[in-house]
């Protein structure tokens, strides 16, 4: 099903180096609009994260790109092909790897057999034992899948996504349910894939995951992309006002109180666009009085703060 939409002019024809192009994508389930108007591109070789709360439209977007769902409107290109067209499906599947959200593997095959079976579906698969070692399942290679722990099955899933040596890998919430050390190992695997030139498009609702892995992040909320950019600058993080905090000192407040200072719960918070000058005044005041600014910190909004403010609308709706 080819859906050409004229209004998708916001994103012009992609250069050949874009692995994924999405322009004006829309999808509804009955009266519920899951994806309202989503546009983004993923460049060849980058790690791109779709970040958003549950139900924001991440998985729907991904499943349209993977060819599992039909779109209502918009233009979608994956490695130069339309994933909605079944005719090119096999050739496209040979070049992409999919790690879906739910774990599902034949229980009675061993880890090695499962990977060897899927390797046989691809024209140029990676070496089975090498992949097993890469995801850290060498000790379990001859065990049946049903006897693996949940985390081990998820790593097998990751291995199945990579066995065909894909140019583009889709990861749908790849580390949900992992313990912290397993997550770090999974991140390391993804970084090694990028180093080898694989493009990765992942969805996650973990801020730290997007921050740790992604070259670029798109925050999706209520079916729309509300911000896009590198994790360090997204949502104006780099221009945002700095936040100075310290324990309420004796003799507070000073006469020339800096604008925007708030004292609450024994803590003073000052938000400012000019942290150097404000800090100088505050520390000068403290030194004059012979007191200290206990527990002094200066920071900018974390990715989490940005994310929470960007997705606030979803939040309100889900808590209502």
């Amino acid at each position, binding site marked *: 099903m080819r859906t050409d939409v004229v209004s998708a002019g916001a994103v012009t024809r992609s250069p*050949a*180096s*874009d*692995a994924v192009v999405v322009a004006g994508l829309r999808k509804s*389930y009955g009266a519920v609009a899951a994806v309202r108007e989503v546009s983004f591109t993923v460049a*060849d070789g980058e790690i791109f994260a779709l970040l958003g709360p549950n139900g924001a439209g991440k998985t729907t977007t991904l499943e349209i790109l*993977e060819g*599992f*769902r*039909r779109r209502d409107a918009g233009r979608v290109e994956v*490695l*130069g092909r339309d994933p909605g067209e079944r005719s090119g499906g*096999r*050739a496209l*599947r*040979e*070049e992409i790897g*999919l790690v*879906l959200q*739910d*774990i*599902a*593997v*034949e*229980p*009675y*095959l061993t880890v090695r*057999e499962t990977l060897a*079976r*899927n390797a*046989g*579906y*691809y*024209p*140029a698969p990676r070496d089975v034992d090498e992949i097993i070692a890469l995801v850290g399942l060498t000790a379990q290679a001859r065990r*049946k899948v049903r006897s693996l722990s949940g985390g081990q099955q998820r790593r097998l899933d990751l291995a*199945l996504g990579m066995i*065909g040596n894909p140019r583009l890998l889709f990861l749908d919430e790849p580390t949900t349910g992992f313990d912290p050390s397993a997550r770090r190992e999974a991140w390391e695997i993804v970084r090694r894939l990028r180093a080898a030139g694989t493009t990765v498009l992942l969805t996650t609702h973990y801020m730290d995951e997007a921050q740790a892995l992604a070259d670029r992040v798109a925050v999706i909320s209520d079916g729309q992309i509300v911000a896009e950019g590198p994790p360090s600058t997204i949502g104006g993080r780099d221009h945002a006002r700095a936040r100075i905090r310290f324990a309420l000192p004796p003799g507070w407040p000073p006469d020339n109180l800096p604008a925007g200072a708030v004292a609450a719960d024994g803590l003073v918070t000052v938000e400012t666009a000019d942290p150097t000058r404000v800090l100088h005044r505050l520390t000068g005041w403290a030194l004059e009085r012979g007191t200290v600014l206990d527990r002094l910190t200066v920071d900018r909004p974390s990715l989490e703060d940005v994310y929470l403010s960007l997705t606030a609308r979803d939040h309100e709706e889900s808590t209502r």
Partner: protein
Amino acid sequence: MTTVTVTTPRARRGDLALLWHQVRYEQLSFWRNPQSAIFTFALPVVFITVLGAVVGNGAGGSYFYGLSVLQYFVSTIAAVSVIGSCYGQLATGLAIRRQNGILKRVRATPLPAWAYFLGLLAHCVMVSAVDVALIVGIGRLFGVPWPGDWPAVGVALVLGAASFCALGVAVASVIRNAEAAPAVAQLLLFPLLFLSGSYMPIHSSALNAISGALPIRPFNEALIGAFAQHAGLEWHNLGVLLAWGAAGAVVAIRRFRWNPRPE
């Protein structure tokens, strides 16, 4: 930067090699799963062994159409084993594979749908063939003569296996709930098995007229004819079986879903 639209075509393995690869792993999963190996494969073998031990190869008289009791049951239980290996295995197995997401995983790989289904068909035919060979062999041990018309046996078995595979996929396509699948599949099957004379000869012309238009009785009669009566090919029965297989295939193709959740 590599260009996206131009890719060097890499060599795919041949279709037959891919099919064989798929059949091998279907076989591996089947024999490793104690439930399928015992219920689908071993049960008919046990049944015919017990029956042989109890009744021997005594004459059945006109009640068994002039065949020996065991000769009759070797034919019908061979049919039951084919129906179990094809219809039973696919009707429940595919519904469960869909429910737990395994089918969606298959769809996530480049394996073409035809290769997946032909692989399943070949796998089911192989399990059926081994089962039928064992049942006939055990019958021989109890004195049942070898089948009278081997080519007719072969035609009836392959056509029956293909038709009951198609019906199994059709039922798996219609039943959307994996928990209900085994129960519904058996509920459709068991009354029909009795009605079609699989567990005892039926001598009611009214019942036989009904069951003769349904798929199991024609399969039984085609096999009884081929095993015992040197009747040549039973065109009428094979035709009814083929019609059911074709109907099953149409439903399967139109209604089959890979995704556990509806769009």
